[in-house]
């Protein structure tokens, strides 16, 4: 798999130009605007589902660029990467290709919260994503800037409802039509860059600002509510100027664990991995921040920044008198730059230099590119439905930072889901859902559309109430099968591999269950497991595997005939044995939530005139958020249990009508099936 990739990469530049100039078509099923983490996953997913897809980006060269930190994964984020991979997304495999320092965070805290993470080589990551996109069937990449989003006038029968028809490109009046458009414009929506007292329009340094036309359409023509957020990036430091003797060395894991379920090893050999270094701030850093505060526009404005990825300015101002961590991360195998994680700043460049030199390991460091801040518009995501489609505009999907999130993984997850949804909508396939009870991607989407954001949204494991079931190790079992059978975004190769894994795990657990010994016999057979002398009952192999002291390997060497065929899954089996009893306990709660999620609240409800006893405040919240299901409504802040009881009552009353619509839909589907069947006969 990995060696094949090398050949494809060598010819990728050639492919770029040919693909880009070869756009003759005027119509696509899906158009994706933006080539970042959300855009690339969206375009690839839409094409995998079967849609003729066009990806429009300002520069083909920056497709797959890591604009901020050179790393992927982590606690919570790593779970997203595993899930994206399980759905045949790009980023997991790209991470395995580009990773130069792999580690599993939280190794001692339990497999449900392990955080697979890697430092990446920026160049390699971009190469991989570009080659992957250009090799994707049904996907065309076009370099260009979108001037305008084309939408129909509101439907007189449904006031305020639009339909997307396509896009118009800048520099000419060329329009391209499409059934679905996915916007993944990141920080470019009315983006401004800040360094010191200087402000300039743009979403990323070195790139042209996006056209004002797009913002205009979203706000004025579609009437979408937007908010403003800010983020920042640290200065890049010249590697040779760093005094590593004054920093703490952090080596990677000895054996890199790949992100992708398809890979058994990473491109980077274990011994080729690069280390990271840890250093701490000093009181001098705080002094420079305070001295330069009056020259720092970005920090003075009260636009919402993330609490968990704050600039060094807000860190020292909020928690003064402390030492703050600064990680020195490699930017790539051949790069001579370092990325100082934790030093995002927006003060004038000369103050930035003074600041970093207050840190012992950076006392004579040189800055290659100064840090800067970005302020940008986001569309309040409560205006989206669970497929990430804008509620009042059929066919328009939004994904990534435009929805108020932060982070590559969060963007990629939305991108994949928007791509799948956009393609299915364009191809008139039945809509699909992804629940928060089955995936972190579901948690992310549900949180966004039902709660909205007040600060850039980042994934944490604590956001997932069923964390013990949504583990990184079982993302394939949770999502790959569904991804193939229901969503249509998973290749058959991956599907059959997952089926094999599922069947083997099932057989292995049955084999473990079949081994039943009395406690006394267990003690005799495996003295190392330190089973209590007070235990008299008989125990199965699965019970014994739950012991801290027992590994699958130990059991396999005691019962080689029964268990040795499953050695390849030893770690997964151990995790499964420990977690299964807890997950069984959660099943009831999961079923309750799924039941509530199946109770749809019609999207055209007029909450203000609804003849249901609801307070004005609750009506306003419901009208603003328009939760798509009763389950989503229960998770809204400010919604009282009373309101839920009344809504439940309402849903039950109107339920009969719903069922009727469904049966009609089912009938259509039956007809379709008959048609397909006759096609097969022909």
């Amino acid at each position, binding site marked *: 798999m990995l060696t094949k990739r090398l050949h494809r990469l060598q010819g990728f530049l050639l492919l770029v130009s040919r693909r880009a100039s070869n756009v003759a078509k005027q119509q696509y099923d899906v158009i994706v605007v933006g080539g970042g983490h959300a855009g690339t996953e969206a375009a690839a997913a839409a094409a995998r589902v079967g849609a003729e897809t066009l990806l429009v980006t300002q520069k083909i060269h920056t497709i797959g660029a890591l604009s901020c930190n050179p790393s992927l994964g982590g606690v*919570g984020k790593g779970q997203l990467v595993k899930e994206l991979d399980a759905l045949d997304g790009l980023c997991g495999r790209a991470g395995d290709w580009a990773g130069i320092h792999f580690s599993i965070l939280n190794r001692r*805290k*339990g497999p449900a919260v392990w955080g697979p993470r890697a430092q990446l080589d920026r160049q390699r990551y971009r190469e991989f994503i570009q080659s992957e996109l250009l090799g994707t069937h049904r996907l065309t990449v076009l370099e260009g800037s979108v001037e305008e989003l084309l939408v129909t006038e509101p439907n007189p029968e449904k006031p305020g409802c639009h339909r997307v028809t396509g896009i118009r490109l800048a520099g000419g009046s060329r329009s391209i039509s499409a059934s679905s458009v996915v916007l993944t414009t990141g920080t470019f929506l009315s983006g401004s860059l800040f360094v010191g007292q200087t402000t300039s329009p743009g979403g990323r340094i070195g790139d042209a600002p996006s056209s004002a036309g797009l913002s205009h359409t979203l706000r004025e023509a579609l009437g979408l509510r937007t908010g403003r957020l800010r983020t920042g990036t640290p200065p890049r430091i010249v590697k040779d100027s760093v005094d590593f003797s004054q920093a703490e060395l952090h080596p990677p894991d000895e054996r890199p664990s790949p992100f992708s379920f398809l890979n058994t090893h990473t491109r980077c050999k274990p011994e080729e991995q690069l280390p990271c270094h840890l250093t701490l701030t000093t009181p001098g850093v705080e002094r420079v921040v305070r001295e330069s505060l009056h020259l720092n526009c970005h920090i003075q404005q009260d636009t919402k920044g993330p609490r968990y990825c704050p600039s060094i300015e807000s860190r020292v101002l909020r928690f003064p008198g402390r030492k703050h961590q600064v990680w020195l991360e490699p930017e790539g195998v051949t790069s001579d730059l370092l990325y100082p994680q934790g030093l995002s700043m927006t003060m004038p460049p000369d103050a930035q230099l003074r600041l970093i030199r207050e840190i012992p390991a950076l006392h004579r460091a040189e800055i290659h590119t100064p840090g800067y801040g970005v302020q940008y518009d986001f569309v309040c995501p409560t205006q989206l439905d669970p497929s990430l489609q804008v509620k009042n505009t059929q066919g328009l999907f939004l994904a990534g930072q435009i929805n108020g999130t932060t982070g590559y993984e969060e963007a990629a997850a939305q991108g994949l889901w928007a791509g799948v949804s956009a393609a299915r909508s364009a191809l008139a396939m039945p809509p699909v859902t992804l629940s928060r009870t089955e995936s972190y991607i579901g948690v992310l989407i549900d949180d966004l559309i039902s709660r909205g954001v007040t600060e850039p949204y980042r994934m944490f494991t*604590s956001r997932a109430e069923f*964390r013990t079931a949504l583990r990184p190790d079982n993302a394939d079992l949770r999502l790959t099968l569904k991804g193939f059978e229901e969503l249509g975004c998973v290749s058959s190769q991956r599907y059959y591999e997952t089926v094999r894994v599922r069947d083997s795990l099932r057989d292995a657990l049955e084999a473990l269950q079949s081994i039943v010994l009395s406690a006394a016999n267990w003690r005799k057979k495996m003295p190392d497991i330190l089973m209590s002398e007070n235990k008299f009952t008989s125990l199965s192999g699965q019970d014994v595997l739950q012991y801290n002291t027992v590994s699958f390997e130990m059991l396999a060497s005691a019962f080689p005939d029964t268990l040795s065929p499953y050695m390849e899954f030893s770690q997964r089996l151990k995790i499964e044995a420990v977690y299964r009893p807890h997950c069984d306990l959660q099943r009831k709660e999961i079923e309750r939530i799924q039941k509530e999620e199946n109770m749809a609240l019609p999207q055209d409800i007029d909450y203000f005139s609804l003849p249901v006893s609801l307070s004005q405040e609750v009506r306003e919240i419901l009208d603003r958020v328009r939760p798509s299901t009763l389950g989503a409504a229960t998770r809204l802040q400010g919604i009282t249990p009373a309101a839920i009881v009344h809504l439940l009552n*309402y849903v039950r009353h109107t339920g009969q009508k719903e069922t009727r619509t469904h049966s009609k839909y089912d009938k259509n589907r039956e007809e379709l099936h008959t048609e397909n069947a006759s096609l097969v006969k022909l």
Partner: protein
Amino acid sequence: MLLSVRVGMLRGAVHKLRTRLLSTKGGVTDGLADAETIFALSSGHGRCGVAVVRVSGPASAAALRGMAGITRGLPPPRTALLHSIRDPQSKEVLDRGLVLWFPGSVPGMRPAEAGEFTRRAFQAGKLGLTEVEGLGDLIHAETEAQRRQALRQMSGELGRLYQDWSHRLKRCLAHVEAFIDFSEDELIEDGVLNQVDRSVCDLQAEIKRHLMDERRGERLRSGVQVVIAGATNAGKSSLLNTLCQRPAAIVSPIAGTTRDVVETALDIGGFPVLLSDTAGVRDSTDLVEREGVRRARERMQQADLTLVVVDCAQLPCDAQRAADFLQEHLRSVLATEEQPDTVFSADKCLLVLNKTDLLPEDGRLTLERELRRVPGLPPICLVSCHTSEGLQGFLTELHGRVKTLCGNPLTGDPTLTQARHRAHLQQCTAALAQYHRYRDGDLALAAEGLRLALTSLGRITGRVGAEEILDIIFKDFCIGK
């Protein structure tokens, strides 16, 4: 509430009124469930001379006008007026009573479901969950002490206790979550977890202590179970009749008169008591009597307090021998088939030596003095149900015991009043034990324990969302990645 009509009237009229209120339904718009008007008898179903009927909902005004015979407008709000209450159709006068209404804002009628008024108040955010339960108890409060505890719970004291636990547990969970989600690249140290360990231990101890209130709060709600037991013809039924001041049980000189459990509710010094008279314990060939004895033993096992009645004429004259006799007697009465050698607990029973009128005056005093010196015997009361002699002293003793069993509702920890609370709190402590079990091996499963504990508490105080946990994390830690 939208509008209340409170009608004071004789009970007999209530049924008629119910029928009338039901018949008004057809005349008003038959709207959606939520626009329905509900009514109920609010004054309980016990003995009462005065009834309160409460109506709430959009058709309340029509009901008020129709039944109070008001032709134009409505009387001034929040003002009690004496009116004839009439059948709205036939205009027949049902009763006379006070009518008053409270204004509301919104526009069918059906009988309220149990607790629907309170549920509406709860749903409108006017009452917390524990307050609603307190109100439910208040409505059912039959005695003064129950009323006081219900009031105390209404004012949210119990609610505040649970809120405090919930708050502390939230912090523990937030700190563990911070350690899971951030510690690797932040400055969150292992010390955070040690602090959580201590807090979890404290919480466990507090909740366990609260649970070990020996069901006092529940007793206050449902009544202290007091069982009268003893040999046949000791005068158990006479004691019951004397206590409830009416012939609730048949008394006769024939041994084995009482064959089944006779139950009666009493108010002893403001505390509710459920008093049961049981069949005399003896070996019998009579199938019915044997069943009676089995039931008597079953009752004694569930009892909070057993009154062992002994005919004092049966006692040996010598005090030491009398003490031995009583020890043996208690054992035979209180023994169960499973535990034939049961050791009776002195604080769970009271010895009642009956028929003192059959003893000479000085003999009675000597017996009393001598027996009180014998260690290992439960408190003893000498009474005569026949002459009421010693009854006052017995009642004082009984009151003291009942009071201890219920606890003073106005001091100390608010006691548990709901079996539901007990169940959730037990789940909560079990989940906290899960935290300790996995603390060192798997922090995700340890945190799951805290989350389950918080969910159990949340079933009493209202739920806790992930966002609240994150808010605590960001308030307490400098997260800066």
